[in-house]
């Protein structure tokens, strides 16, 4: 069973990782919780799905997207690539890498509380697959939107299944660890 503090902790860590991973450098973004009704109305056609799990829980993160020019432009800016030269494969890889980066951050941050933790590789599925989520018996489902001035509004769903009593507390003011620096051995 997940405590309320643990549910809040999953939400806080995912919101922080969304902001870090999906915002192109130098741009501003806002991440917010959205209602289940709003999530039901998501018009995007596809989902990148990843899981972060330990023997105590499984957190499934779903990134909704529509493969159009606006999405292409966003992920090109995010990855310092030229949108014009991105073919379909590199476009889909860029979206998947966005999910991978986000869950990588979530995985690292959850690792502070759960030492034995791992994450999946990204998979792209049709949005209609989301209808089967209830089969997972998730104890905590939350939906988020990320807004940036020059990009489409992206939606993300978090579904957590617990296999034991889980309680941890996240300090929302904790500064994220440094990334991108070379740590020499």
């Amino acid at each position, binding site marked *: 069973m997940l405590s309320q503090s643990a549910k809040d902790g999953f939400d806080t860590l995912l919101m922080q990782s969304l902001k870090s991973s999906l915002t192109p450098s130098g741009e501003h973004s806002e991440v917010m919780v959205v209602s289940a009704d709003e999530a039901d109305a998501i018009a995007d056609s596809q989902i990148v799905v990843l899981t972060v799990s330990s023997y105590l829980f499984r957190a499934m993160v779903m990134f909704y997207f529509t493969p159009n020019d606006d999405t292409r432009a966003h992920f090109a800016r995010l990855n*310092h690539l030229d949108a014009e030269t991105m073919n379909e494969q*590199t476009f889909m890889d860029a979206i998947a890498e966005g999910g*991978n980066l986000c869950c*990588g951050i979530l995985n690292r941050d959850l690792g502070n509380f759960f030492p034995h933790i791992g994450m999946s*590789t990204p998979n792209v599925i049709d949005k209609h697959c989301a209808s089967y989520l209830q089969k997972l018996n998730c104890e905590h489902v939350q939906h988020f939107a990320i807004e940036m001035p020059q990009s489409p509004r992206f939606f993300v769903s978090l579904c957590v299944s617990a296999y034991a009593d889980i309680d941890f507390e996240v300090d929302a003011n904790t500064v994220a660890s440094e990334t991108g620096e*070379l*740590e020499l051995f």
Partner: protein
Amino acid sequence: MAQILVVDDSSTVRAEVGDFLKKNGFDITLAVDGRDGLTKLKGDASIKLVVSDVNMPNMDGLTMAEKIRSELGNTHVNIIMLTTENSPLMKERGKAAGIKGWIVKPFKGEAVLSSFKKLVDG
């Protein structure tokens, strides 16, 4: 003839890292997983630095690093891991395999450029 081998299963990361390094004067070659990385390194004695992801299909980056030292007997090439992982256990395994350093993604080229130059020139 390449100076840096970039190993990542994501074409996005290969393009981002590869383009940055090329723009900064490095000769590079790309590999899609650890197995491909081993083959490319075996066939090009000029490679001075390997920049590799950890989690990849077919062969992960840490296994590749171990095989570079053991199977290829290459003890001089510098190996850097570029990964979303930051687990102390993985870093210890990397150190045991003789890797030179660790970068937590996302890749920020300017932050590592001077170190890469030293590792290639040294």
